[in-house]
Structure formats: structure tokens, C-alpha cells
């Protein structure tokens, strides 16, 4: 598989604290890659570097073909980002939110319209364009936030705990959106604390204390650690 993210010996230090300790991995185009780890293991630090928001202390990393030291603006244009906390503007309509983010990514007015219709159509929300966001149920908002994150056809979309607190049915619909996105060739880089969601990823890495201690398909990880579920694998490695 053609790599879209390549990381070699990536190190990030804050003073004497090593947040990322020689990370090496690559993610293929169109892959769903689960980036797991305990709180404070260094996931956010690594993700910020890959999004072009922070520079590594040493090591190499390329995202969508661009260098994380020198081409951060190009990286930002080619990725999408969504987190549980990052939300859309509550006092704007659905259409205005799409327009706003489409505009930020430099899409033309015509492109924004087509893309908005396409994405909303997929969610079955085509008729809801003019609704103010704050009147919309939380589950829908998460799906809309995901659609906005891919409005500009990024090469990669980074999802930071996208399903936290979401009801179980919406959580599953959300993962089906992720599958669809990956099938279109967009790479999905996702973190989660729901271990059943780790099973939905094609490959999973597990970070402990700044290091990647395991990286494989969920099936292989379960075999390697003699575990029935990813939860067991995680507890064994992180505890």
C-alpha cells in the first residue's frame, strides 16, 4: 500500500520530558488506522505534529507527501480534523457552517454548494440545511462535524475521540461513515477510548509512555497476546 503518512524515529521533548520517544510507523492510503494509548501516553502530541501544529524535536515525518518541519501550511490544506470538543458554530445554520469551513479551505462558492448537497444528501439531511445548529440533536452534530472535516476532499482525516458520549446507534452509524470515507480513498487516522471501535480499524497502534509498544491488525494483536478482545490486549499492554 502506498504510504500517506511516514514517520521515522520521531522524538518530541518538552524540557526533559520525552512525550514521543522514537516513533516509527507508516499509514497507507485509504487505510483506517487506530491510534490508541492511555491518557498522557503522547497521542495528542504526535497528532499535533502530524497536523502541522507542532514541530518534532528530532526524527522524520511526512504527511500527504509534505514535511512536518518545513511544509506545515501544505499539510494543513491536505488534511481534515475533527475532535469531540471541536464543534461547529451553534448559532449558524448547517449550510452556513459548511460555507464557512469550505471557504476557509479555499473552495469556490459553486464547489461548496455541490459538496454541501452531496454530504448532506448522504446523511439524509438535505432538507435541513437552514436549521440552526443549536437545535440539532448531538448525534447529528457529530456526523455533520465529520462531513465538514472532509468537505475539501483531504488526503487524510484526523479524528480525535470522535464518538465520545454519542449514543450506541449513532456511534455505529458514525463508523459506517468512516468506512465509506476510507473506500473513497481518504485515509482515516482515529483515536478512541472505545475498545470495540479498535476492532473496526484495519491496523492499530498502541502507545504507552511515549512509545509505540504494539502495531498490527486487530486480529494479529489478539493472536499475539492470546486475547479474546482488543480491550484485553489494551489492558495487558497499558496496565
Amino acid at each position: 500500500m502506498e504510504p500517506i503518512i511516514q514517520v521515522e524515529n520521531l522524538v518530541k521533548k518538552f524540557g526533559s520530558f520525552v512525550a514521543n520517544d522514537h516513533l516509527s510507523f507508516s499509514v497507507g492510503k485509504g487505510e483506517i488506522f487506530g491510534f490508541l494509548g492511555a491518557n498522557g501516553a503522547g497521542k495528542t502530541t504526535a497528532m499535533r505534529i502530524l497536523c502541522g501544529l507542532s514541530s518534532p524535536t528530532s526524527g522524520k515525518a511526512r504527511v500527504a507527501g509534505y514535511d512536518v518541519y518545513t511544509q506545515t501550511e501544505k499539510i494543513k490544506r491536505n488534511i481534515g480534523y475533527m475532535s469531540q470538543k471541536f464543534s461547529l458554530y451553534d448559532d449558524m445554520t448547517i449550510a452556513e457552517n459548511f460555507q464557512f469551513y469550505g471557504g476557509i479551505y479555499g473552495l469556490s462558492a459553486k464547489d461548496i454548494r455541490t459538496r454541501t448537497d452531496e454530504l448532506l444528501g448522504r446523511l439524509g439531511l438535505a432538507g435541513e440545511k437552514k436549521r440552526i445548529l443549536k437545535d440539532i440533536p448531538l448525534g447529528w452534530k457529530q456526523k455533520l462535524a465529520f462531513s465538514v472535516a472532509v468537505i475539501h476532499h483531504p488526503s487524510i482525516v484526523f479524528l480525535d475521540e470522535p464518538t465520545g458520549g454519542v449514543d450506541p446507534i449513532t456511534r455505529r452509524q458514525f463508523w459506517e461513515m468512516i468506512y465509506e470515507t476510507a473506500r473513497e480513498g481518504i485515509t482515516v487516522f482515529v483515536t478512541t477510548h472505545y475498545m470495540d471501535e479498535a476492532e473496526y480499524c484495519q491496523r492499530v497502534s498502541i502507545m504507552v509512555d511515549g512509545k509505540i509498544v504494539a502495531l498490527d491488525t486487530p486480529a494479529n494483536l489478539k493472536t499475539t497476546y492470546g486475547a479474546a478482545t482488543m480491550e484485553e490486549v489494551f489492558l495487558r499492554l497499558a496496565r
Partner: protein
Amino acid sequence: MPVSVKVEHLSRSYGKTLALDDVSFSVQQGELFGFIGPDGAGKTTLFRILTTLLLPGSGTARVEGLDVVKDFRKIRDILGYMPGRFSLYQDLTVEENLNFFAGIFNTTPEANYDLVKEIYSQIEPFKDRRAGKLSGGMKQKLALSCALIHKPKVLILDEPTTGVDAVSRLEFWEMLARLKKLGISILVSTPYMDEASRCDRVALIQGGKIMSIDTPANIIRSFNQPLWAVQSEDMYGLLAHLRQFEGARTVFLFGQYAHVTLKEKVASGELIAFLEMKGHGNILVQLTEPSIEDCFMELMK
């Protein structure tokens, strides 16, 4: 067993939004009682009423026999509350926070130290660190210590494990199990369905309504139809095909399987034949135990 918390026909609206819709339940003394539901289910509204921070719209709620409206001052003395958002003083140190919370309840950390010892001893090495500089797991332990320092009869914890990794979640539930042994009634909310099994009884809550209240085992027993775990080489295609299968009643992705219930009189053999016809390889169809999450989704329908 004596009743610790009793809620009858409780409702509460915010403008046009009905956040709690005719909720009734009771919690026994020393019970570990869980409220399981997603964001927006009404868990926080309920807890804010029980902690006397919000007035009920209608209905009644009593904590240890005290009314949440009339006796709010007395309730505050016997209640420990850990809100969903970290609410300690970030610019006070670990030790100062504990002293402060003991102080406002007219007690000292020393007086009830045995109660918090096990939890607080884990953060004591950092007692001079400001609370704002602690890691997520340590903040959680400090918040729990502060909620316990006046030896409450009832402990109310609003989503203590949200956003917390699987290891810290496990440890947190182990702490709650130890507190329960001391006779404290514990009401805890969580969006993680798998945590239900840690509670004596749970209320499944969604859209302001309690859908079911029982022991986790009884809730699972109430799932009164066969549940099939289905797998094939192409999981994405499998989901689409399962939805096309006329005999399927519900289809949900579940870890490495799809969980499927079938309509009456549809045999699993028909499902297998259908998937074979659709070209799936390595098909696995086997009966499986429902989880709380399966029950929750069944009730949501």
C-alpha cells in the same frame, strides 16, 4: 434495606426542551447505582437536582429522607458530588484543595483520612503541585478525595470515566467497589455501556426517560430473542448485505462481528445461504450473549 434516594415523577424542562420526563426510581443505602446513557440523556440534569443545584420542574426527590427543595442545606452536608467538569481550584495545590473542601464542611482531612487514604495516598507524593498541573487520572483521584473528605452518606459522580482510558476506568471502578463496602450509596453516570456490569443496578436513560431499571443480569435476560454474531471476510460488504436480507430484524456493527436478530420463523440457515449467494467467504454465524449495549439499542427502537 433502607432507601437512600427516592425520586418520584420528576420532570424538568429548559425552555421547550424536556430534559427529564417523568423519572421515578429509588436507590438503596449502600447500593452502587448506575445511570447509563449518551450525552443529552438527562443524566446531569438529574444529578444537579439531586445535589440541590437545580430546582425540579415537577415531581419530588428525597435524599436520605430530605427533600431536595425544602431541606437543601441539610442535603449538602451529607452529599459528596463530583461534577462532570473538573471543578477544583486549579491554582491551589493538591493539599490545599483537600484542606479547603474539608474546611467548608467544618472538618479536617485528618478526621476522615481513613476514608480517602487509599485514593489520596496515590497523589500524596504530588501534594505541593497545583491541581491545574495534574494529569487527567490524578485530577480524577483528587476530585474524588475532595468529594469524600466530609464522609458523605451519598456520593454522586457525574461521568467520572468520560474521556478516560480503559486502564484508568478499570481502576476507578475498583475504587468505587471499595467505597461501596463502607456503606456509602453511590450514584454514578456513564456513557460507556460496558461499565454497567460494575453496578448493582442500572437505569438505562435516553432522551430524558428511563427505559429500564434492573440489575445488569436481569436487563440482559430481558433480551428475549436469539442474537447472532455474524462475520465474513468483507465486513463492510457484509453490513450492506445483512441490511438487504429480508429476514433480518436488526443489524448492528459490534466489534469484529455484526450482531443480528432475525424475524420470527427465519432460520439462521437462510441467513447463511443468503450470504453465500452474495459471495461472502469464511462466513461465521453463531449465537452470542447479548450485552447491555445490545439491550440499550433494542430499547431505543
